[in-house]
């Protein structure tokens, strides 16, 4: 059978459909299981209205938003610089930015303790000076989320900036545009899709953060117990158990999906502008 024959195309098509089907099934099944389990539990609505779930959801939503905003504010300059610089060892710097992605979150939590904990490099002098300790505060939740989630934004943003033709920026300079003006009017709009994708990835990772938060921030309702921690807590609680935890997972998924859809719609390029 030659690769040119129509039969080869047919086989390839069948193969693609088969592989794609298995892949899709693999992602659909766990969600189907969640929905089925939550439906049989029948407590989704009760739980959604309960004080503890609301507290955890609100905390997750706003800490996730703050962490993402911090990642954008502090990460964008780094991403742009990494995309434009030719400094020696750039690939090592890029690898360092990616490092938290491979770091197990529990290790990230311990690392945060060694830096910002009561005996930490910064934590100890900071407490001696101001009396403030990060551990067990909502600020610790945000630090944990930024550490594990920001690399996803920086990674996407760097790729986006690298995709913007530097020639365009040079043309803008020669036409008299300042560097700031060029960045805002040329570079940012060109990199926009990549930056938005990075924002989504970063926010999603922050919303799912569990291990680093548990170790560095602890778990207390309304202060540090975000949805993933509340779900873990429910699983180990006699009154809620696995089906309670599953129902809460479903609530988190639905809310996260709603936020993502709204974000997509709000940031979609306007059709009329084209």
């Amino acid at each position, binding site marked *: 059978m030659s690769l040119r024959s129509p039969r080869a195309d047919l086989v390839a098509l069948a193969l693609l459909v088969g592989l794609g089907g298995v892949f899709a099934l693999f992602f659909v099944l766990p969600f189907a299981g969640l929905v089925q389990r939550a439906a049989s539990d029948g407590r989704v609505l009760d739980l959604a209205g309960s004080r503890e779930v609301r507290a955890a959801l609100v905390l997750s939503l706003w800490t996730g938003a703050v962490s993402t905003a911090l990642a954008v504010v502090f990460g964008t300059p780094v991403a742009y610089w990494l995309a434009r610089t030719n400094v020696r060892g750039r690939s090592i710097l890029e690898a360092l930015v990616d490092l938290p992605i491979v770091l197990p979150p*529990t290790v990230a939590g311990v690392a945060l*303790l060694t830096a910002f*904990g*009561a*005996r930490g490099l910064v934590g100890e002098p900071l407490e001696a000076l101001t009396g403030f*300790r990060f*551990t*067990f505060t909502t600020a610790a939740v945000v630090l944990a989320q930024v550490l594990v989630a920001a690399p996803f934004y920086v990674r996407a943003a760097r790729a986006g900036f690298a995709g913007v033709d530097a020639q365009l920026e040079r043309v803008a300079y020669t036409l008299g545009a300042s560097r700031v003006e060029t960045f805002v009017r040329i570079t940012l709009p060109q990199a926009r899709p990549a930056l938005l994708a990075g924002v989504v990835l970063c926010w999603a990772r922050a919303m799912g953060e*569990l*291990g680093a938060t*548990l170790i560095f*921030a*602890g*778990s*207390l309702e309304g202060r*540090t*117990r975000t949805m993933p921690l509340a779900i*873990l*807590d429910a*699983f*180990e*609680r*006699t*009154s809620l*158990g*696995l089906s309670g935890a599953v129902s809460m997972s479903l609530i988190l998924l639905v809310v996260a999906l709603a936020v993502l859809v709204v974000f997509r719609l709000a940031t979609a390029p306007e059709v009329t502008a084209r």
Partner: protein
Amino acid sequence: MGGLVGVALALGVLSACGSERETLVVSAASSLTDAFTELAAAFEAERGGVQVLLNTGASSALAAQIAEGAPAGVFASANVAQMEVALAEGRGDVWQVFALNRLVVVAPARSEAVRAFDDLAAAGVRLVLAGADVPVGDYARSAIAVADAERPGFAADVLANVTSEEANVRSVLAKVELGEADAGIVYETDAATAGEAVRVVPVPQAYAPSVRYPIAALGRDEAGHAAAFVAFVLAEDGQRILGAYGFTPASGAVGASGAVEAGR
């Protein structure tokens, strides 16, 4: 979290079955980690041909796993309530108390904030407890409640100081060892593993609940390994090992799960 890892471990073990050596999964309360590691080794040496896989975590997490059908042959819980949860689905019927323990307050050796049980109510103390369904968290809250009966307002003050509810006794201890928390409530045996890093403050006898560990064989146990392990823990060698880790040996009280009693 250790609990979820435990499920993964237990499932991994199931799929690895078919190898020559037989395995017995023992789910044990976090506070039993060190004692049961030695117990398991001693049991393996005595029985031969059986490999014990120890799955440790909060008893509440382990009970939830067992109630969901996690393949555990033996469950050693830090309180009777979680044993009842594990047995409610008909995975076993009788349990026996095999050890006793005591509740203590631990504080970082470098910190002066908590030097007596009463100090837990002082304003600004960062207190870490285990979750309310985790046995050590349950025992701690009942000790606080008993103290409150003597001095109304004590419980409210102490509970207002709770700065984190941890997943199990070992993570409560870790937060104190690291100096992040000013105090935590754990078992005496856990406090002993921390050594110099922590100061141990007794819980007054009048408030201290009686900490009892029940054990039960689960499931069909065709090879009899689970029953043999339970018997080993209750026999002289097992009790000696538990004593060496600071537990008070106790092979006495026997209970049956409510579900089974109703069925008979």
